[in-house]
């Protein structure tokens, strides 16, 4: 079966137990996506599947025929960074950096979700337009854990990109 990863068509015919995370890291050499807990609890493995963020450790590659996968390597490059990548650099949105690819992929999709009007549990009026306050960003990014505790800078980085997109 085939699937597209960062715009490149790849073939998968391996063991059906292979998670999307292991396929990306082991078979595609895309090691930007990180394995943290491998149980969907830390968010380090977050990638975009057809534009939506998911935990790549909790999905099987074989279930993604014809899907379009975007990893951190597909968002930007050192020479041509995505605005979120630049903002994380500007704001020191990390210390060890292990959670950062997941944080950035998650933030990319999170901004798109807010743009599409998706509410969160801290949204007071479920039918009003979404205003991404700091509390909203914290809640929406809660699936990405940072053991270094760079959270406040992560919020600042995401806020910058949100403001710039206005």
């Amino acid at each position, binding site marked *: 079966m085939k699937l597209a990863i960062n715009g490149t068509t790849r073939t998968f015919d391996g*063991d*059906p*137990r292979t*998670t999307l995370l292991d396929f990306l890291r082991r078979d595609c050499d895309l090691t930007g996506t990180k394995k943290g807990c*491998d*149980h*969907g609890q830390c*968010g380090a493995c*977050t990638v975009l599947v057809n534009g*939506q*963020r*998911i*935990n790549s450790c*909790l*999905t*099987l590659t*074989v*279930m993604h025929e014809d899907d379009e996968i975007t990893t951190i390597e597909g968002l930007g490059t050192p020479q041509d960074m995505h605005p979120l990548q630049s903002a994380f650099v500007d704001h020191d949105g990390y210390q060890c950096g292990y959670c950062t690819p997941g944080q950035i992929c*998650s933030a990319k*999709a*999170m901004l798109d*979700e807010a743009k*599409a*009007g*998706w*509410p*969160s*549990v801290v*949204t007071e009026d*479920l*039918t009003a337009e979404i205003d991404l306050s700091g509390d909203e960003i*914290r*809640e*929406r*990014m*809660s*699936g*990405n854990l940072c053991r270094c505790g760079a959270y406040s800078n992560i919020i600042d980085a995401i806020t910058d990109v949100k403001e710039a997109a206005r």
Partner: protein
Amino acid sequence: MRPFDYQRPDGLDHAALLERDGGALIAGGTNLLDLMKLQVETPDTLVDINRIGLDELEPTDDGGIRIGALVSNSVCAADPRIRADWPVLSRAILSGASGQLRNKATTGGNLCQRTRCYYFMNIDMPCNKREPGTGCSALNGRNRIHAVLGANENCIATYPGDMAVAMYALDATVEIAGPDKASRSVKIRDFHRLPGDMPQRDNVLEPGEVITGVTLPAPVGGTQLYRKVRERSSYAFALVSIAAVIRMEEGAISHASLAFGSMAHKPWHDPRIDAALTGAKPSDALFDKVADLLLENAEGYGENDFKIPLARRTVKAVLREATGAST
């Protein structure tokens, strides 16, 4: 993970047949794959139902809405109709898990999620739910997250979810297809089971049955709250949760429907509570009576004793807010 045979059925009937023959259905997979990694679940066949449809929200003839079994939690919670007319369901879904998990988790899969009991998830420990007849390790073990209602010595696990709690308050119906094109509907309040002497069975699904959707009756309006008490304010399971749908008319409660999460082997609904509230004027005495009804047979097992006073205080706070008795 143990090896398995991966199958993609060509439709619902095929999926039901594969399931009847021992296959495990996989939709979002966020719970099942986790349990397969832990070898709590070891299916020989994995039946991937993601490409068989069942992914729409459709209005029903009587003003309700039908949520397909494969509608993701994210899409359901964000649907403008759900947000406007059944907001307790949006609130409950959004209070659970993370954005990543809600994008994969489905309506049917969420109903079938397994308990997060530490011993159920640890194959080195006895557990009647995982391995009937081996005993319940939680009974005299670490049981902070465990049941205080409807449990017995066989199993004190809780159903951990949020979405279903709101669906209990909304009196939803689960639609189920069986092999040979059979189908049936089950009130969601009868869908999950108490442990009894078969704690290995979480719900009433029979072999070969597949959830096709959940139907919500026409909206009843009113104030709809989902209050979730947990160890941290995001991305954690409930210790106690309450879904409340309360409508007031001329100072009295004209409609009341309450359901309680993380207190039992299933979301808890007690019709006596709804009856006691309906027609009554809000008062502290009334709210105490509701708490008494809820907790009359409550039993703690040590570390979870706190859930009993916590539930009492939480239900009273929810009722005060929902009835406008105080702010």
